[in-house]
């Protein structure tokens, strides 16, 4: 079975007037369908940049990216938007809800960019995910009227509403207190058990341990890739950044 996500020699270079920064340096990574991967490492190691490229929010400077066997490196903006809309669900650290839209409208947003869905279908799907994150009673509220934990649950619901192939979560508990963080992690756990593929960026070791697989980055490179429950250690070839699981 071919992996759902396959990154080959992916690099990302940020060039400003004076400084050239290699945020991601020749990374190779494969994620299979149904996996729950934690991407960890210190601040500035490139994990969020890598996640953005996996989510087609950004393009790699070099390297290739295959999503479900399709090379998506050369897609244009509209093709990438279509994939984001149908195959990917995002959860951000700062929730990224639109303050002028209600909870219901925020969750509905991805569906409004899909063709062929009628009002009833949209309502049904939104209510379904609202129930899943237990936010049905707040659907007419605005983000500013919710707590951080509630906002993140809304963000999770939005990530689920389009039934994506995989969910990308960027520090989903970074802005939450421990109680709310635990609730969100439990929610992700549930999603994983339901069969969702999840890739989560985190620098919290406790959160990282909740994932089945833990990929560690440093200075734009993957330095380890391990399976948590089996305690399988990954070997990393430092010259090629190639990860192999023993």
């Amino acid at each position: 079975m071919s992996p759902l996500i396959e990154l080959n020699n992916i690099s990302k270079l940020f060039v400003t007037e004076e400084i050239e920064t290699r945020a991601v340096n020749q990374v190779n990574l494969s994620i299979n369908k149904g996996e729950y991967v934690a991407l960890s490492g210190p601040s500035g190691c490139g994990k969020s940049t890598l996640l953005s490229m996996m989510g087609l929010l950004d393009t790699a400077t070099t390297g290739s990216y295959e999503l479900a066997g399709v090379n998506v490196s050369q897609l244009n903006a509209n093709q990438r938007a279509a994939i984001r809309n149908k195959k990917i669900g995002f959860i951000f650290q700062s929730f990224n809800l639109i303050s002028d839209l209600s909870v219901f409208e925020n969750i509905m947003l991805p569906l409004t960019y899909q063709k062929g869905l009628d009002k009833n279908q949209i309502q049904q799907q939104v209510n379904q995910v609202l129930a899943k994150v237990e936010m049905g009673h707040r659907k007419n509220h605005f983000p500013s009227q919710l707590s951080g934990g509630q906002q993140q649950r809304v963000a999770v619901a939005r990530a689920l509403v389009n039934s994506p192939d995989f969910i990308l979560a960027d520090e989903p508990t970074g802005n939450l207190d421990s109680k709310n963080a635990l609730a969100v992690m439990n929610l992700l756990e549930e999603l994983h058990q339901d069969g969702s593929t999840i890739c989560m960026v985190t620098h919290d070791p406790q959160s990282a341990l909740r994932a089945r697989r833990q990929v560690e980055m440093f200075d734009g490179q993957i330095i380890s890739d391990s399976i948590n429950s089996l305690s399988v250690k990954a070997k990393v070839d430092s010259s090629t950044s190639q990860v192999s699981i023993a």
Partner: protein
Amino acid sequence: MSIFLDIKYAIRQLFKTPKFTAITLFVLVGGLTISLFTFSFLYSLIYKPLPLPGGESIFRLSISTNGDGRSIPAYELLEAKQGLQSIEHLEVFETTDFRISQQDVGKTLTGTYVENEIFSFTQTQPILGRGFTPEDMLSSAAPTVVLSHSTWQREYSEDSNIVGKVIRINDLPTTVIGIMPQGYHFPVNSQLWLPLPQRLKSLTADTREYIQAYGRVKPTFSKEQAELEIGQAMDAIYQQTARQFQKPEGKLAATLYTFPHAQTDGDGNLVFTFFNLIAFSILLLACINVGNLLLARAIERSKETAIRAALGAPTNRLVLQLMWEGIIITLLGSLLAVLLVSDLLDYTDALLHAEVSENLPFWWRWGMDVPTLLMAIGFTIVTIVLASFIPAWRSAKQDINSTLRDGTRGAQGKKAGKMSRILVTVQIFLISTLMLIGSISAFLSQYLLNMDTIEDYTRVIHGGIFLTDKNYKTPEQKIRFFEDFYDRLKRKHNVENAVVRGYFGTSELVLDGEDSGAQNQFPKIDTMSLIGNTEFFSAQLVEGRHLDKRDNPNAPKSVLISDSMKKRYWPNESVLNKRINIRLNDKLHSVHIVGVVKDRLNESSIFQGHSSEDEIYISGRQFERSYQRIFYRYSGDVTTAEESFYQVLFTLDRTIEPYRVEPASKNFDMMKKAMVMTSYITFGAGGFALLLALTGIYGLTSNTIAQRTHEIGIRRAVGATDKEVIQMLLKQGSKQLAIGLSLGLFVFTLISFAFHGFTDGNIPVVLYFVLAGTVTIGLLIVVLAAIYSPTRKAVAMEPNAALRYE
């Protein structure tokens, strides 16, 4: 001390961003200059008190009969004024042209027949000689004249012995008795003053002579009380004399205007308000733009403001601190605008006085004055409030907590977006209104400038002559006078051709068998009398013959008709010798057509081309008219040619005062210059306003979109395509465009109705639709481009960058 630090900080910020400072300053100086200049120019034109001691309380009397303005019946006024309680002073005057001759050379100057107290009334005494005495007013007195300083300077080289000398005025030896001080030309633009002739005061004075009156209301009475008293007193006497001497019937009513107001026929308030509103709209556009630039800067610094607030800065201090940049720029802009306006006013004054000095009322002087400076202060305060205070207030009232927590995300939420949308709508409304009004003005100017009138006014002089019923009692006498004038003028060696033209207004063409006596059902045709032929006006003969001496009072009445008239009413038949009936001044005349001439442009068909000009030319030897204009084409120099007119006139009747003997192109050239000037001003102001509006709309849209960058990032992250994002933003922009344009078109419709009435329906209605359509399409394109451009930029950013945008 802390305010000083804030000012220092603001100045440093302005120097740090010179491009921003320069743009803001340019926009403000432009807006303030246009508004201030418009105010000052119109204020001097309409409201500035006469530059005379007590000038603010001097009024001009206007009399109407059943609502229609008319010449003041001098006899009734002079009789009525004896018993008036509310009036301190009341005198009549008549402004007319006078010919001053020295040997064989003469010059026409505007002068005024006045009563003897004019100079004491205006508290201005002659610098040489004396003013008038009651004795000078007697009909038996020797003719006397008081000259203006400029006439004395220009015509008599400031001859210090001028007083007592005899000069010829209208060929009559007249003694100079005084010279008035420089700049004195009361009541309007007098170059000389003569005693009011007894004939103008008489009970049977010809009411067609344009007599006017000035005076002053007693301080204990209101203007309205005085108007009522004068009106009633004059009407009581008039009703008796009107019956007795068969004067026109009607109830007299009096209105008092200031001299400047009277000069604009009482429409000064409307003109002042209308043009100032337009100019203020441009200032408003400038304020919105500057306010938006300052708001964008305030948003950029919202984190800094939030930190200051968190550290305990009170709101008013924060507001003031944010305002300093705007205050400094506005003060600097106002100062520059005042200097610029001062120069522009001086230039305008010099230009207008160089071009039309003698025709300008003496109080029309332009320059920096106290009201303009006060208004500059007013505009500065308005600008500071609109462009600095409001953005600063909004920025200082932000949600500190959310700004400190999330940067600017959410800090400029729904309210800021709503405010931007309102401002864009206001800008679109203002610019569409300005462009629509400007388009009418520009179209008219251009149309009239490029209009082919056919008539060739090269080396043509014209002058008007009015024959009073008192001196020319019968129609035959009047006809004979004009015929004689024509014959004598044509015999002059420097006169190549001449024509005497009397305008009869419209006559009704009573078609065969249709005269039922009912009014308003027959075609109304422009009708004029001619002695001479139509070829003088380039209306060549198409068939038949011209009017000539054969068409005299003893012969059957003959007419010429224009080609368009012939084609309209008798397209397939010969009209020569055809007999038609025309109703002229309520009298039916049977006339026969002796010729057809080419069409010429006339007032009623000015926007419909030559083919729609129906005209009837009647013989000036068969139809009399008291007032006629004489046109003649001359050879040699213009001064000698003008003199020929007066020589003929004074040979025939030295008591006649001709009206405006001058080159026929003078008015046309003046009108052309005025239109070119209007075009430049319209295009300049319109162009500046359009530039302001477009940059404003672009700026506001950019600002709004910049504030929504994060939202756009989220939408794109969840799958919105670039096209969908652009469509969403354009849709929102289009809504503002539609509302703004609709409001603009509504105002334009109201103005069009007013304008249509004002121009007597001479502009075809379709033109308003064409202009509205053109401006709407043009604005749609440029405004959508101004909205599209920042939208395009917003989606050029990677979604990831947009999500991290602060």
